[in-house]
């Protein structure tokens, strides 16, 4: 029963900020997808031109994924920015939900109750995952709706769904990282000062990927786990990255539990 109480309490605590995040993500979809009609009419012609480009050129300009030639490709291009925002949301949520009591100096109330630390952290984790599932459900359905308004072609496809679902996996990664940071670091005064630089650091690493060598670095940053081009082509995710992500999430969460149980709050 206490588990359910904390769970409901945390859901209530973060309903407004989650609603704002969902609104932001959907708004980004609207704004970016509204550009698409300009390219749609020329998509066929553009594709023919690009297919004749030398591979080096496609590589440099970053259009190897043939953006502007189909809605899927175009969406892949803009979705990167939405992923950054979604990453910040998840990292922020994870860090905030775990460190809240020590930041607001309300630990006494929570810890004084006859509830184990493990139960507290589990309730918080479940609440955070619930909020992220809601975020993604609303985001994905709204984006399909937005696309149908702006594009003439058939919209609802498994590929598109799989591309959008990558945000959920990425968010789980950053949620786990947020849990880890919040439990390991003794005191966090400002959550955004932690979450924003961390997510952007991962984003920048993904841009600079081929400095140390493509594959090695791509395992470090979740922004590289999902190659949209690969998804468009194979209609599936690359398993090695899925496994890497899953392993990271499990390790980060287990470590969080260990630290949270021991922590002085």
């Amino acid at each position, binding site marked *: 029963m206490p588990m359910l109480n904390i769970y409901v309490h945390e859901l209530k605590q973060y309903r407004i900020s989650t609603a704002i995040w969902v609104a932001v993500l959907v708004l980004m979809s609207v704004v970016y997808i509204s550009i698409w009609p300009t390219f749609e009419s020329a998509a066929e012609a553009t594709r023919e031109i690009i297919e004749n480009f030398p591979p080096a050129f496609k590589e440099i300009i970053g259009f190897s994924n043939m953006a502007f030639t189909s809605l899927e490709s175009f969406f892949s291009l803009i979705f990167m920015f939405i992923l950054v925002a979604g990453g910040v949301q998840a990292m922020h949520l994870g860090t905030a939900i775990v460190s809240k009591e020590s930041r607001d100096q309300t630990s006494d109330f929570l810890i004084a109750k006859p509830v184990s630390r493990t139960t507290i952290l589990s309730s918080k984790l479940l609440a955070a995952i619930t909020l992220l599932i809601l975020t993604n459900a609303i985001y994905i359905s709204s984006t399909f709706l937005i696309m149908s308004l702006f594009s003439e072609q058939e919209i609802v496809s498994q590929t598109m769904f799989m591309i959008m679902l990558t945000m959920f996996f990425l968010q789980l990664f950053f949620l786990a990282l947020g849990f880890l940071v919040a439990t390991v670091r003794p005191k966090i005064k400002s959550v*955004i000062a932690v979450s924003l630089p961390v997510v952007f650091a991962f984003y*920048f690493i993904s841009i600079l990927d081929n*400095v140390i060598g493509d594959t090695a670095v791509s395992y470090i940053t979740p922004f590289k786990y999902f190659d949209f081009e690969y998804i468009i082509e194979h209609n599936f995710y690359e398993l090695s990255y899925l496994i890497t992500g899953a392993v990271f999430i499990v390790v980060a969460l287990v470590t969080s539990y260990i630290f949270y149980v021991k922590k002085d709050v």
Partner: protein
Amino acid sequence: MKFYTNLYLQELTAHKKGLIGWSIGMILMVAGGMSKYQGYKQAGESVNDFMAGMPEGVLAVFGGGQLDLTQAVWFYALIFLYLLIMGAIHSAMLGAELIAKEERDNTCEFLYVNPISRTDIITAKLLAGVTNLVVLNLVTLVSSLLIVEAFNDGDSVTNQIFLMMIGLFFVQIIFLSIGMASAAVVKKPKLVSPIATGFMLSTFFLSMYIKIKGDYEWLQYFTPFHYFDGETIVKDNALNPTFIVLSIGIIIFMFSFTYFVFNKRDLNT
């Protein structure tokens, strides 16, 4: 005067670790970005040949009309966008933190019983903030000059890098002033940083929108990231005077606003 200097030094110490972290980040970004250039340099030549044969309209679609990636400075101009983002995140958070910190940590009492006016407090904090921005900017300037020159085998690019750093500095000050203004106007200290950075991120996403759409018009005035676009600076070898005036206007407005509001409001102690 003593309190004044003390507060200034205290703020510098408080942000020392952060500043070192951001400086390392900037150096890594410049170094990492430019080492990517090496690989593109050779490929770039075949691309240039190819581009020469393309019709104008097609080039415009890809924003590649002017882009000559075989030259180090063009490549640097692409990285410059990320330097702007880093500078903006740093300064927006710094501006918010400088002012909101006292209320959040309940340290107002200590600070505001000192025999100095609120105006002086803000000024000391503002100077400490600007000092941080200058240091970060100089670190970026020196590392950029050294690293880009190392890759550059054409004409000197010192001038263009200087111009971009001036642009970076404007962006830094704009977001510092926005961070401070948010802290002055937002009542809940916990919400200041999220609001300031949220604002900063929306202008970044707006500039991406403008870039993809390729259609500037009136929207461009709403995002400082567009004011000092690296590719435009390299192409013109100058900063756009309209945007300089606009930036100065924003900065003066935001700082005056901060002083005005902060002097009047009740502080939560």
